[in-house]
Structures are given as C-alpha cells and as structure tokens.
C-alpha cells in the first residue's frame, strides 16, 4: 500500500487543541444536546421527540465540521475545530441512534426494517460505522497514509450528502431550516476554497 503524504492534508492524529477551540465546540455541543434532550419534556412522548431533536442538534454540530474540513489551509486551529465538531456531532448522533433504536423501534430489528426499509437501514448502518471508523482513525492514527485521507474525503462527501438528502429532501418541517442552513454553509465554504485555490494558482 502506498503511504506517501497526502497533499494539503491535515496532520493526522496531531491536534493542538486550545482552550478557545474547545470552548467554541464544546459549549454549543453541550447546550444543543441538552436542549434536544430537555425540550421533549414539553411533550407527551419523550423518546420520540428526543430522537427528532437530537438529529437536529447533530445536523447543527456537523455543519462546522464539514465546513472546517472543506476550508483551505491546515492551521492547527482549523484541524482542532474540525476534529472537535466532528467528534461532538458524532456523540450527539449516537444519542439520536440510541433513542431511535430503543424508543422508536423498541430495540426490534423487525421494527427497524419495517419502519425504515432495508435500503435506508443499511445506509444508516454504513453511515454510522464509517463515521465511527473515521473518528477512530482521526484520534488514534497519526501516520501519513494516503488511503486514510482518501477515505476521509469520501466519508465527508457521503456523510454530508446523507445529511443533505435526509434534512432537505426527505423530511419536512423545521429540520429543513437546519438542513438548508447546513447546505448553504457548505457551499459558501466550497466557494471560498475554490476561490482560494484559484488565487493561489495565480500567485496571489
């Protein structure tokens, strides 16, 4: 396997997380997750609404991670912001998965397959496993392997597209606001990256 250093890559596994980085990511994570778990107290169905609100929180938290990943440069601060939001979004997502499996689908594989359909259930499984795998690599693998970078790019495309499809196309309601905001933010970051690459190519 080729192990050359990936161009423009972040330095894998070497994060210099500063207090401002941690504050910037942890505070919204803690507050959003708390809100997602507490807001259902105003409803008659805690499990169902915790499932919904935690995916809202996850979408909000994953947006900075996706943006940070797409923005140009490899400053330590950018890397820290990316890994922290990528991690906190995943934790919020795990809470969502917990409530979905054990409260909406009552821990029953039958109900999951009946409720989601085989394709969606399989997609969700791949989504979860891949995200977890990438996080493990991000935190615990610091080598320069190019495949790690490639899979990370693919993971971000796949996870980002899945969020887009589920929050903008498949679902209706307030989730669309969060999904569209995420989509706009990503496009802005992509545009900036494109512009940055163009300017760099012309030597500005």
């Amino acid at each position: 396997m080729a192990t050359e250093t990936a161009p423009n890559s972040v330095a894998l596994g070497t994060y210099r997380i500063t207090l401002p980085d941690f504050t910037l990511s942890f505070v919204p994570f803690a507050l959003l997750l708390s809100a997602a778990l507490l807001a259902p107290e105003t409803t008659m169905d805690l499990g169902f609404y915790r499932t919904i609100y935690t995916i809202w929180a996850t979408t909000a938290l994953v947006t900075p991670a996706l943006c940070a990943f797409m923005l140009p440069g490899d400053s330590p601060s950018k890397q820290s912001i990316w890994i922290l939001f990528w991690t906190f979004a995943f934790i919020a997502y795990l809470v969502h998965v917990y409530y979905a499996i054990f409260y909406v689908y009552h821990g029953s594989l039958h109900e999951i397959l009946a409720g989601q359909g085989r394709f969606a259930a399989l997609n969700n499984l791949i989504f979860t496993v891949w995200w977890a795998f990438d996080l493990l690599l991000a935190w615990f693998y610091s080598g320069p392997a190019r495949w790690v970078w490639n899979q990370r790019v693919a993971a971000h495309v796949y996870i980002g597209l899945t969020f887009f499809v589920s929050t903008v196309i498949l679902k209706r309601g307030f989730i669309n606001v969060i999904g569209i905001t995420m989509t706009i933010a990503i496009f802005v970051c992509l545009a900036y990256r494109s512009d940055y690459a163009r300017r760099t190519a012309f030597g500005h």
Partner: protein
Amino acid sequence: MLKAIQIIAITLAGTVLIGTFALIFAESRWIDPNPSSPREYFLHGSTGTELMPLAVFQVLPTLFPEQFQPAGNTAGDFIDQFGFVRGAPDAKYGLPYGVNVSRYRPKSGAPSPIPFVGFNCAVCHSANFERVGQPRGTVVLGMANPRLDLVAFGDAIRRSLLDENRLTVPTIAATYKSLNHKSLSFTERLTIRYWLRGARAALKADLPMRGSPFSGSKLRDSSLMPSGPGRNQPMMETVRFLIHETPDPNGGASKIPCLYQQQRRQRAQFDGSVGDPLTRNSLAALGVGASVYNLRVPGILGTMQQSYIFVKTLDGPRYADLNGTDAHGPDQARVQRGHDAYMQYCSSCHGWPEEQNWTSGSRQGQVIPASEVGTDSARVSFRYYADMGTFVDAFFPPGHPLKPPVGDIHALPEAERGFITEPLEAAFTRAPYLHNGSVPTLAELINLKPRRAVFYRGRSEFDPDGVGIVVTEQPDVDHYFRYDTSVYGNSNRGHNYPWPYQGTGWNADTLTDLLEYLKTL
C-alpha cells in the same frame, strides 16, 4: 479574563449537560413501583389509558358542573351520575374504582413528573351490588358495572377539554387552589399547559371521525347517546382506533361483561372472535385510550398480564354473600327441581357446577349462530367484521408483545356468526342479560315473565323478584336511559329457552323452579 470566561462557559455548559443526564436518569424513578399482586394490578395498575393530569381530573367537575352533573347538582356528584363505584375518600385521592393514578404520560408511557389518571380494568369490571334501600351496597370485583355510563362520561370530558375559554391553566390552578387549599407547583402548571395543548389538538383532529361530543342533558338522551349505563360500543371504537374510520353499520352497543373464572373461557368476546385473553385486554385498553406504543411499557404490559391472572381464577359471589338469607333467598325445594330443569334445558350450552369445578356442556364454548339463538345480530354484522383479524394484525408491529398469534382473531362465515356459550357463575350478578343488556332480569330471560319492550335504566339495584336489576317504566332521576328494544342493536328477541313466553310447553312452575336454581350458580 478571556480565559476565565471560557472556563466559566465550559463549566456552565458542562453542568447543564450533566444536569440533563441526571434528569434523564431521575425520570426512570418517577414511575411508581409496580403493584404487589395481581389483585393490586387489577385495582390500581395502569392499562396505558392515561387521560389527563390528576389535578385537572380533580377540578373538571367543579369547572364544568353542567357536564359532570347533567341531572343537576341535587342528583349527586359525577360518581353518582355516571355510575362509577365510589372509592374510599381517604385513599387514592378519593377516586372511584378503576380510575388509577400513574406517572405515565398519555399515549407514550414515558415517565411523567406529575401524576396522571386513567381507567383500568376495575372501572368497568367492578360494581357496587346495591339492593333497594341499601345504597351503600357491596363492591364486587370482576362484576360488570351495570350502572357505569362511560361513553357519556367520555363525551363530558371531551366537551370540557374543547372549551378553550373556561379550561385554561389559570382556571385550573385557581380551582385547584380553592378545592385543595394549595397551589399547583411550577412543574404541574408547565406539564398541564403542554398536555392541554396536545390533548386539545388531538381531540380536534378526531372531530371529523367522531363528531362533536354531546353536552349537558344530552348526555342522558338515549337517542343521542345510544350506549347508556353498563354498555359501550366496542366494535365501533375498535374499528376507529384500528383504521381511523367510524363503521356503518357500527355493531350497536354491548354490555360490559363479568370477568369471573376466565380460565373456563376458551375464547373471548361475546362472539368468540378472540382467542388470546391478552389480546382481548389490549383491545379493551386501546378502545379507552391506550396506544400500541405504551402497551409495551413494562409496567403497563404487566397490568395486562397480571389483571388476567387475577380474573383467571376469580370466583363470582354467592347469592347469600350479597343478599344474606332474606325472604328472596333460594327456595331449596324449588332449587332441586330447578336443577333438573337446568340440566335438561340449559346445561348443554352453559355447563353446570360441580363442587368447586364447572363441568362443560356438549355445546359449551361453541359459537351458536345468531340465526339459531335468535338474538340481535348487529354485534356480528357490523361493517368490517370479516376484516378485523387483518386490521389487528396490521395494527400491532412485528415483535410487539401483545401482537396476537396468527389466526387468533377469526371471522366466521356470515351464516355461522353468533354468540359463544359460556358458564354462568354468579348468574344473578350478570344482569342485564343477553350480550346487549336488553333483558333486565333472569325471569324475563327464561321467559317466566314477558320481556319489556321499553324501559328506563340507570341506577341498577338488585331486583330480588325477577333476579336482575331494577328498571322503571317511566324515567326518573335515577333511571334516565330509555332502553327501546326496537332501536338498532337493542333487540331483546331470541334465546327462547326453555320455551318462548307462553309458547308450546311453557310451564310457569318449572320456570319458577329454574329461576330459584339460577340464584344458586
């Protein structure tokens, strides 16, 4: 300075998060401990029918006297006027039998920080056996409450909840304070606010299917509220929660059955359509407000299971237990002769008692076609009768603990549909008779006396002469419900055993003997 602010922000956010998880952990402790025995489950367990916060239930009769005292404030409180069985005033908030208090949120069964009230098995299946002049009576568990007008009570509740001007958090809080001399807590106010918003929205969403609830004196008008005391419209409600449609024809009203010795019943429901007793229990709970989601919550599922265990071996009362040895007690000479008549004319379908056991008759547990027994067939000819098994199967998701076994709910061919023959333990407490409660006394059921075409029902004191319940020819404050046997589903025809009234073979003396014997079952 900036560093300090960041540390404070992290600390505060972390504290909020830890506090949130601590609250979630604490939620599991809001649920009260499970009842200690099958009897306690039957009396106090939750069947998932949580209606409203306890505080709201306590103030509704005061806020809406026209709904909860439709006969006026001199005719007793809502317990009297809707026929509940009064509980002890100093226990369980003074609520009637079967109005249970739980910490489950409606429909989901999620833990609630404040108590909710709901109906459990005991609300319909416990009764106050009253004799004329002895209104305190004796509470009999498992006996169908012939006086309970639960459908009308449901309309009274719906009507009140839909009143957005008179039922608000401030009016609830003020009334609660005036009744209990204490204020609602912040948590109670908050929960009531959110519950009320959701409950009202759900009621409004149901209006196209159910129509507007009736109100005030109309709750006692049999032309508008055709169920009346001791009955409900089970098939209509079942179709409604299964497929969100009101069937037409709707199957009419059926009486609430007694639940003695359920182990002797091979199949449930008057038409024998349901095999698994837990399916029967769950369908009953769903009809009163449970959901497919909360029925799997352990404490609620436990009530389904344990309540069945309680009624599985529950003995009905003996005649002397409730009536003493009065002048109407069984005449032993007639009892012996009546036994012979029973064995000749009744035992093949209903079996007979032998010491502590019940011996099955040759046709006991069979569905006798309505065309043969001749009783009202509305119950077995409603729209979707043949589809009920499919509907129930689709309603319960795969893996649901109460999902009926395949084929458990059967729909017989039209010509074979009818009513299942069952044992007659404590027959004197099963009035009114036939599945639709169209025959007030055993004397009329066995055609010793002619069956009444129109009568008024309500308070259901024991009628020791006819052996059944007292009904009247004219309405009064206690007997308000006009039972007209010409109305759809109300016919009192059929079951002409041993003989039609004054028909061929009719013998008043033999029937009098039989009536005496029936008192001893």
